[in-house]
């Protein structure tokens, strides 16, 4: 069962999804639900991907937090506590049929194809009347809470604009009103002028650890040109995005010599019919490691006060990543 419950103290929705308590949890590789189905397999061995092979596949999440049509909420809302059906879509993005691969290990041309699929999903899901925001992301590594080892990304199509996007949009709108300039135009210009926090760049894309990073290795990637959504990228920008992304992934993996866990999230324009030309499509990486053996936890200040404490300087961490060779083992 799933529903939206309004939190009047933070003015944001919480999604209840009680059926997810029973979702698949770290199955052995032989029983991976995200591998293609073996040819001739009996019915009970058909995986979530019925085909015996695929280039890139999207499957609807078996245990979705959002689904259309949504279930009827189990409780009635009140003026104080509004409740809403959890309409939307939760998809799993399978960019390789190789169980032991990673996003880093995908050749460049496959990353470019994946970007085209992300574009198609943004357009398709964003065109649905119940969807206000298409959120593309990947959780990688058990330390992040991944419950299936097979490499995969996800897409949540929310029936509302989520709080972080709303805050960024509001900040960008205020900045435009105050200065007449786009916020991310100023951010990209400041990072290029300073240079110390840049991790990698090419003709049309740049990756840097921002001045205000909350995690030690919080790398942000974005087009240098004002582009508010992934579908606005030119072909050249799409290839440069693939190159920039692969370089950052390789550097993260080679930083400590193991496949780096991360959350990779994409922020872009809502699909609620508004105008968001002042916004900038970008990718943010949240890496849980603050050293090779120590993790950054979201403890009292981060979780309870919303104040991140970064134990490092972005200028120093970016210098570390710049020195790491972008090669794949």
């Amino acid at each position, binding site marked *: 069962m799933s529903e939206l419950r309004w939190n009047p103290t933070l003015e944001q929705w919480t999604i209840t999804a009680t059926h997810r308590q029973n979702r698949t949890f770290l199955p052995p590789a032989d029983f991976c639900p995200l591998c293609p189905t073996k040819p001739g397999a009996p019915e009970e061995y058909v995986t979530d991907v019925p085909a015996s092979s695929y280039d890139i596949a999207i*499957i609807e999440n078996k245990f979705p937090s959002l689904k259309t049509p949504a279930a009827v909420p189990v409780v009635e809302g009140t003026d104080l506590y509004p409740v809403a059906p959890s309409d939307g879509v939760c998809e799993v993005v399978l960019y390789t049929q190789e169980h032991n691969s990673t996003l880093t290990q995908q050749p460049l041309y496959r990353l470019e194809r994946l970007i085209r699929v992300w574009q198609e999903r943004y357009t398709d899901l964003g065109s649905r009347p119940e969807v206000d925001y298409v959120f593309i992301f990947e959780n990688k590594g058990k330390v992040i809470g991944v419950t299936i080892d097979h490499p995969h990304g996800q897409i949540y199509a929310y029936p509302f604009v989520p709080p972080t996007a709303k805050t960024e949009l509001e900040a960008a709108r205020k900045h435009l009103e105050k200065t007449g300039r786009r916020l991310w135009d100023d951010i990209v210009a400041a990072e290029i002028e300073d240079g110390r926090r840049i991790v990698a760049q090419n003709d049309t894309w740049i990756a840097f650890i921002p001045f205000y990073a909350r995690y030690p290795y919080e790398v942000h990637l974005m087009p240098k040109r004002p582009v508010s959504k992934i579908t606005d990228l030119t072909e050249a920008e799409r290839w440069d995005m693939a190159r920039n992304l692969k370089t950052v992934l390789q550097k993260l993996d080679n930083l400590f010599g193991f496949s780096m866990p991360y959350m990779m999230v994409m922020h872009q324009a809502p699909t609620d019919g508004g105008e968001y030309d002042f916004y900038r499509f970008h990718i943010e990486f949240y890496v849980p490691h603050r050293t090779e053996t120590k993790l950054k936890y979201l403890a009292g200040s981060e979780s309870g006060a919303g104040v991140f404490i970064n134990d490092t300087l972005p200028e120093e961490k970016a210098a570390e990543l710049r020195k790491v060779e*972008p090669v*794949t083992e």
Partner: protein
Amino acid sequence: MTKTVTKRDDGRATIYYSFDDEPEPQPANAEETGKAVPA
């Protein structure tokens, strides 16, 4: 890019994207292939 949508018995959609109509790029360098090269 070709998109094919199928439905499972439980109603869930599976979308397959194939690129058979596109030539497989020749590996020009490590960045293109994802293979290791000497550091």
